[in-house]
């Protein structure tokens, strides 16, 4: 009997302590939640970028934050996670990823007193019509401009050779990276005296964001066929490609990867003493800034509900990293020139396929 009583007391103590902890530490009036897309919270890419923005804002505002990883990648999984966050009092929910479009469409009407930030997509109904409710903001990035700048930078740096592209799933954001990259290379060939070729067979979408082995084998095959640099917009598939390039670099062969979403230079380091990396440059998009800005706007009562925002070169929402150890000063200058023209509108980058490859 005594044992049971002791256990019971302990249990009650535990419960009350955890409730106390849960209640303390909040000073602002909302909690920020995030639901991850396929992949993990530390994918060094999309999820991580968003989460870093959430963490930064939540730390500054001293508010609660939490993220949930859905059991799968279907609409039902996403809705379940959103519901769980909502029930736990997280009424400001950030969802990064194209695949959330239908889930957010339902959630924004179901949870009218919650705010949603949808990155990379607009909420869409079953017929594919975009409906951004007043409690939702949809955020797009001009990935084509980001890919364009990375394409220009890589072409100017390497001057001659063959480039390739490995995408993850064939979804709009990845496609725009690809098309922008091809336009960037073409622009450099036409205006900056480079002779880079991209063969149709070396532009592919692997089909997942997680197949590391697939990424390694695809990159290996491309490099074997004479490709010198591969632009990877492919999450975990890119991890395999980066590893393959590192293996080649340690053997003294030429193999470059152009990173995506965040600055991937550190991931490509194969020689720590000389800080040598196979990541030539990265095509960035300001996911972190976007997530951060929305939370701050909410705090200031300026949440742009119902709007669809686009982050592009004109508001520094996309670009290449500020420092690129693998790019020469001449290349950096050339890219800065192109960026200025892009901002001024003298260069336009198409966000559609046109006659580009895939």
């Amino acid at each position, binding site marked *: 009997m005594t044992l049971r009583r002791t256990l019971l007391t302990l249990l009650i103590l535990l419960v009350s302590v955890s409730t106390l902890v849960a209640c303390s530490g909040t000073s602002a009036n909302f909690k920020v939640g995030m639901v991850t897309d396929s992949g*993990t*919270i*530390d*994918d*060094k890419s999309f999820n991580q970028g968003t989460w870093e923005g959430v963490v930064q804002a939540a730390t500054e505002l001293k508010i609660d934050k939490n993220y949930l990883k859905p059991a799968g990648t279907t609409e039902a999984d996403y809705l379940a996670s959103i519901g769980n966050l909502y029930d736990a009092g997280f009424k400001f929910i950030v969802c990064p990823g194209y695949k959330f479009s239908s889930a957010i469409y339902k959630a924004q009407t179901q949870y009218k007193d919650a705010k949603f930030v949808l990155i990379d997509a607009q909420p869409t109904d079953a017929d594919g019509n975009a409906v951004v409710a007043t409690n939702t903001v949809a955020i797009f990035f001009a990935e084509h401009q980001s890919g364009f700048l990375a394409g220009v930078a890589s072409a100017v740096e390497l001057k001659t050779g063959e480039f*390739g592209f490995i995408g993850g799933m064939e979804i709009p954001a990845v496609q725009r990276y690809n098309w922008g990259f091809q336009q960037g290379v073409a622009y450099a060939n036409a205006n900056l005296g480079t002779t880079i070729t991209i063969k149709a*067979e*070396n532009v*592919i979408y*692997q*089909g997942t964001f*997680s*197949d*590391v*082995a*697939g990424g*390694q*084998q*695809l990159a*290996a*095959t*491309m490099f*074997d*066929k004479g490709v010198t640099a591969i632009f990877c917009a492919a999450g*975990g598939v890119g*991890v*395999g490609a*980066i*590893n*393959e390039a*590192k*293996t080649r670099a*340690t*053997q003294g062969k030429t193999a470059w990867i152009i990173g995506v979403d965040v600055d991937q230079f550190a*991931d490509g*380091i*194969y*020689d*720590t003493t000389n800080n040598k990396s196979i990541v030539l440059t990265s095509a960035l998009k300001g996911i972190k800034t976007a997530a951060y800005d929305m939370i701050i706007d909410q705090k200031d009562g300026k949440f742009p509900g119902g709007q669809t925002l686009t982050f592009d070169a004109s508001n520094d929402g996309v670009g290449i990293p500020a420092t690129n150890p693998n790019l020469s000063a001449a290349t950096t200058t050339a890219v800065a020139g192109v960026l200025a023209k892009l901002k001024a509108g003298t260069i336009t980058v198409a966000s559609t396929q046109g006659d580009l490859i895939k």
Partner: protein
Amino acid sequence: MQGVWDLIRLIFPYAIVFTIPLLITSLGGLFSERSGVVNIGLDGFMVFGSFVSAYTIKLLMPVLPNGDLAVWIGLLAATVAGAVFSLLHSFACVTLNANQVISGTAINMIAYAVTVYIARTITGSGNITIVHGIARTDIPVLSQIPVLGDLFFKSTYATTWVVLLILVVFAFILYRTAFGLRLRACGEHPHAADAAGINVYRTRYIAVAISGAFSALGGAAILVTYSGEFNGNVAGLGFLALAALIFGKWKPLGILGATFFFGFAATIANVSQVIPFFTNLVDKSPFWAPLTLKAFPYVVTLIALVFFSKTTQAPRASGLPYDKGQR
């Protein structure tokens, strides 16, 4: 025909690299099942091995003067840790007579969760990237042999040869030593083995430890060869290794063939998108689309299992807890 040869020569080394972790994991599964313990926790052991090696290598790489040494220590650490981790499975299945499938499932769930949790707690991220893995080299002289040199001795990793050596040694142990005979007896008829004076529990403990060690080595081999990053999963290769074990009829040579078949088919499916030979085929008939190619090995396995199921050669006592009192 020239095109086909070039193609095979191009992808063969990559197919081997993909096969080796599967092979060693499958061999681990073979030892466990031949002793009478089903081990569907292979995938979890692989993840565990991948984690232990990644963390060890990350720790040692800056300290040791020679990076390759760190990689080898990492592989060894994973193997030992896998054997220790497997004690959980053998304790549940052998000592406590628990359902082996449930225990294996629990091992998988624990491994996926615990490794990422530990990684996050001690490194701040659930992904651990290593600076470099094992070097890829052409073997001198042998790689100059026509045909064979191109296929087997170019772009190879040392892990490939280590694993093949382990396969030979352990196949010998299984079939040509007293220990091997006893181990197989425990998987076929543990009561008879017990009556003959064999300690069934101890034999099964050792066998499960071998399977844990080998699967962990498999996970570590993935890390130091083609992935370079621990991220909390091995893409379900542990289950593929299990399928290869059945496809290979619980025999060392059989699993060598089965895993290579999987490895080769998976590699073709992966790279077919960038090979004009295949993209041309896709233009002619959608049958050759990457998706079909990816499904191919699984479909073949299913068909093969249907045909083999009548004459299945699974160890008879596999999956049954050993109960001394039962007759």
